């Protein structure tokens, strides 16, 4: 469970967003929408304790984020950013193994239990066949799935992803959202994903956090008012069907378990 209670966030003394209150539950995918520069990444980084909120409280699994030690925070929240990672000499399995860092000793030695979790993370992300592939030779879409596997290996109840589908083609976007849906349904993860792919998010997510004019509005995907509000926020003169992504409310073939609310 992730609870954001009246926080204001920003860099230094310059606030980006003020008085945000929102909630994300286990087993749910929450899509975070907003224009470029609206504060989506800053909000995710604040939840991940990478940026300190100016004011307010963030509760993660019942504990305030500032009461968590660095290690405890890393064991509670994983963050997948937008940075492209290309590390020569590192196999995809090694990259996923980085997620085990909060659970290993000071040398970073992996035990049998860690290796099992890494294998399962690769499997859940559909990347088992890439375990021994050099990480600098995979495509952007494959790398994104590897990074999701890395976040899975971190074994945190809360997963934050910043624009994971930004560089992907249509099948890639379907796959990523399908994986996130599966993780929420089967692993009971609390997932918050910042994205511009509104159509995909509307098809796969449960809730929407919409950043508009410095405010965050929380809505259920199933609410008939949600799409018109998003349309009004992004492009008042355009029809909802023209928003990017597949037709809204398409059946999820990969997740299988998704039902319309």
């Amino acid at each position, binding site marked *: 469970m992730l609870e954001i209670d009246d926080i204001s966030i920003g860099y230094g003394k310059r606030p980006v967003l003020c008085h945000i209150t929102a909630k994300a539950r286990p087993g749910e995918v929450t899509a975070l929408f907003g224009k470029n520069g609206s504060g989506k990444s800053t909000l995710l980084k604040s939840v991940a304790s990478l940026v300190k909120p100016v004011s307010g409280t963030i509760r993660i699994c019942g504990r305030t984020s500032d009461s968590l030690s660095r290690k405890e925070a890393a064991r509670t929240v*994983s963050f997948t*950013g937008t940075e492209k990672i290309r590390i020569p*000499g590192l196999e995809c399995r090694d990259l996923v193994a980085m997620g085990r860092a909060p659970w290993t000793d000071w*040398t*970073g030695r992996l035990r049998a239990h860690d290796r099992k979790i890494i294998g399962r993370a690769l499997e859940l992300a559909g990347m088992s066949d890439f375990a021994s592939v050099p990480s600098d030779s995979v495509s952007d879409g494959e790398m994104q799935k590897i990074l999701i596997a890395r976040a899975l290996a971190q074994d945190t109840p809360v997963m934050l992803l910043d624009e994971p589908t930004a560089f992907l083609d249509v099948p890639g976007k379907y796959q990523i959202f399908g994986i996130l849906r599966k993780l929420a349904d089967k692993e009971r993860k609390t997932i918050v994903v910042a994205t511009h792919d509104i159509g995909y998010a509307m098809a796969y997510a449960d809730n929407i956090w919409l950043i508009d004019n410095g405010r965050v509005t929380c809505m259920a995907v199933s609410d008939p008012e949600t799409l018109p509000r998003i349309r009004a926020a992004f492009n008042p003169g355009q029809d909802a069907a023209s928003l990017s992504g597949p037709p809204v409310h398409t059946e999820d073939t990969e997740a299988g378990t998704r039902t319309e609310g």
Partner: protein
Amino acid sequence: MILYGGILILAAAFAADLLTGSSGIPPSDVWKALAGGEVPEQTRLIVTDIRLCKTLTALLSGTAVSVSGLLMQTLFRNPLAGPYVLGISSGASLGAALCVLGISSSFIAGDSFIGNMGIAGAAWTGAAIILGIIMAAGRKIGDITVILILGMMLGAGIDAAVQILQYLSDEQSLKTYIVWTMGSLGNVSGLQLLILAAAVLAGLMLAAFSCKSLNLLPAGEEYAVSAGTDIGRTRTLVFISTVLLSGTATAFCGPLGFIGLAVPHIVRLVTGTADHRILVPGTALCGGIIMICCDMVTKLTAVPVNAVTSLIGIPVVIRVVIKYRKYA
């Protein structure tokens, strides 16, 4: 397996370097001199006071600059980073130059503990100032190309300052300094060797202690922090380790070009890994081996060690530039 192989190669190179020299001492006499056997006093002096001291200096200085290069490449996420390229060696040189050219030669020539620590301290200070500027700029700017250019410019600026110091200094100090800038493994005294060994040991321990964080840094600071890394502590450990390693090596052996940049890449190529638990000991070993080999070349050809290290390092740098162009 590779590590054991490296230790064997190091032992072989170490022995070969001890046997190499212009005085034509037979291997049996070298062994006797080392084991405390019956040999002429002059032979004993050549083997223990000159050859052994020089080989140990090559081992320690090669290890020091190579590991500091690895730390720089990881910290700045830049394959072309190294103490020489980023101007850290130049900073250490300026510190040492101020000491060598600015203080009376009797203070330096006396080989006192205070005098040697003065040179080392001055080199550490110079290295620390430049590294501090580069790290601060790195955090502010973030662009690795800009950081490299900044390091080169700082290095060039310092070299200009050192030239002014040379112009203003007396003949004896100038001669001492010029020989030092060519890189010299043979002018290190027993006391300096002890200081070098202590600094290298401390620097290596700090590097070893940072291995887990160093493995996470190449994925980016955000990833490292979100995986529980204390980034401030990691930077501090790497900072102190680099200053100790490259500062001390530069103080007593002069600036050793390209070894710090090239050796980590050679080790990555041989081991095929990005794991610092292998890279740190591997780079320490390989740096020692290569510098000992450079020492053998200098003994046989009488060219300055810096010329040899540059000839070894430059092809590696060219290979790295070509290999990493796809990431630019």
